[in-house]
């Protein structure tokens, strides 16, 4: 089995965020990050704890898009109230979306424009400030563009590396991992600035640079790893036989 799609390469990149995680609650927003967490559970990171997206912790991946009651083995109960307690203990790792993100990983999901007069009101900061203050956070951007990768975000929801350094003591649990996009995997250098870790096979590095709204060098980046045959089989036959991943990134 070969010819991995970009969506499948992204799933594997999302799964790789759990390689060092141990027994933590994997919180994933979006279809491809959700498949990625479940792939990690079935392959490289069997100790991570999965949710069904509702109130239950699952000992094995539940059917995609369905909750625990649709089948699967419940190993715990974690309603929303418990989630805030879990994240405060640090036993959680999130992959969140980003309407905007800057070079230091400051993320915005709240609004576009001024706080007092938003041009577009979005969902609100949700849990991003608390997540970034308490445990590792990665980001998922299905359409890499200069509208998302901006010089300055309009409302810092998830805290970036520069701001975390200004509050080094209080934000000592702050940890940004990677940003997985449809073009590349990005991470952060020792100064906390974003850099290109890898470019997906078939993507021109110049495209990554053009679609990023701040200067970034993709010229020397290696190719993102292609999922193994076994990983592709699990993605295609076990986790996402109906191809929900193609709704985030078409083949």
């Amino acid at each position: 089995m070969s010819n991995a799609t970009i969506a499948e390469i992204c799933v594997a990149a999302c799964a790789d965020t759990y390689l060092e995680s141990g027994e933590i609650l994997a919180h994933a927003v979006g279809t491809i990050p959700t498949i990625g967490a479940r792939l990690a559970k079935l392959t490289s990171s069997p100790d991570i704890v999965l949710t069904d997206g509702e109130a239950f912790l699952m000992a094995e991946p539940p059917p995609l898009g369905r909750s625990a009651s649709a089948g699967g083995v419940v190993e715990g109960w974690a309603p929303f109230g418990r989630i805030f307690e879990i994240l405060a203990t640090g036993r959680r790792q999130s992959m969140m979306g980003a309407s905007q993100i800057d070079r230091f990983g400051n993320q915005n999901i709240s609004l576009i424009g001024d706080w007092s007069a938003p041009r577009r009101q979005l969902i609100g900061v949700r849990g991003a400030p608390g997540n970034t203050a308490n445990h590792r956070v990665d980001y998922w951007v299905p359409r890499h563009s200069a509208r998302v990768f901006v010089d300055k975000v309009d409302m810092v929801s998830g805290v970036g590396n520069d701001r975390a350094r200004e509050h080094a003591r209080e934000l000592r649990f702050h940890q940004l991992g990677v940003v997985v996009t449809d073009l590349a995997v990005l991470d952060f250098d020792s100064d906390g600035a974003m850099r290109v870790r890898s470019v997906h096979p078939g993507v021109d590095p110049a495209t990554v640079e053009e679609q990023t709204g701040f200067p970034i060098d993709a010229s020397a980046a290696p190719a993102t790893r292609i999922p193994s045959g076994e990983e592709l089989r699990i993605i295609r036959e076990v986790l996402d036989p109906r191809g929900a991943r193609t709704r985030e990134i078409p083949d």
Partner: protein
Amino acid sequence: MPDKITPLSEAVSLIESGMTIGIGGWGSRRKPMALVRELLRTDVTDLTVVAFGGPDVGLLVDAGKVRRLVYGFVSLDSIPLDPLFTQARERGGLDVTEYDEGMFVAGLKAAAARLDFMPIRAGIGSDVLPANPDLRMVSSPYSDEQYVAVPALQLDVALIHMNRSDAGGNGQFLGPDPYFDDLFAMAATRTIMSTEKIIPTASLLDDASFHTLLVSRMYVDAVVETPRGAHFTTCAPDYERDEAFQRHYAAAAKDPAAWQAFREEFLSGDESSYQEAVTRFHAQEGAR
């Protein structure tokens, strides 16, 4: 045990202009929608609304009932944004306090414990602090550490919806998540609890374990029996979200003429006429 069974209109008369009201549920899940719809029928205004927002927030904001909104998010879950809320924000004139979700819970916990504030790490370094310049930091008395001091979200009235209740106000949730409804009740001076069905106290454990007894009557002032009272949000396991109706709501809310028609069809009468209109809506959908 006192009998607190109260008609819908009488229960909502506890709410006065200028009050701070908390609304239970989460997004588009187990919202006390019948209570919200009844509130829309009053002339109450100038409210501060505290909620993990869903269509409750959209409807109250659109009706001009809200002076200030305190929230961690406003979402319809299966539809990411509530158009009535986003339009109100983009028009301007709505005062908002946008917190991290954990900060929001901390504010309720402070109120429930009759404390001024609750310390939390969430919010440090984010723009939640500059957006809410009244927020203060607090120094640890034990180290050099500083935390966000989330002020107590003291509520005059909490509105919550339960699957079952007895006449005295012992409330039972039967779905997977209690949300924060017990905390809303504890943070409030008075609580109005609507319920799918009022049953005898002795029957509360007939079909469910004691862990489902979420809300004690100690916190509850009025019990309102409102079958399908969370419609169109979820009230599992009694019913799931009415996705077709929610899509209709969200689509109508984006267009002034369609929204006017929606209001006339669904919100111009009382609760029973609302439920009848929903039944008609589905009959027409089915015939289409």
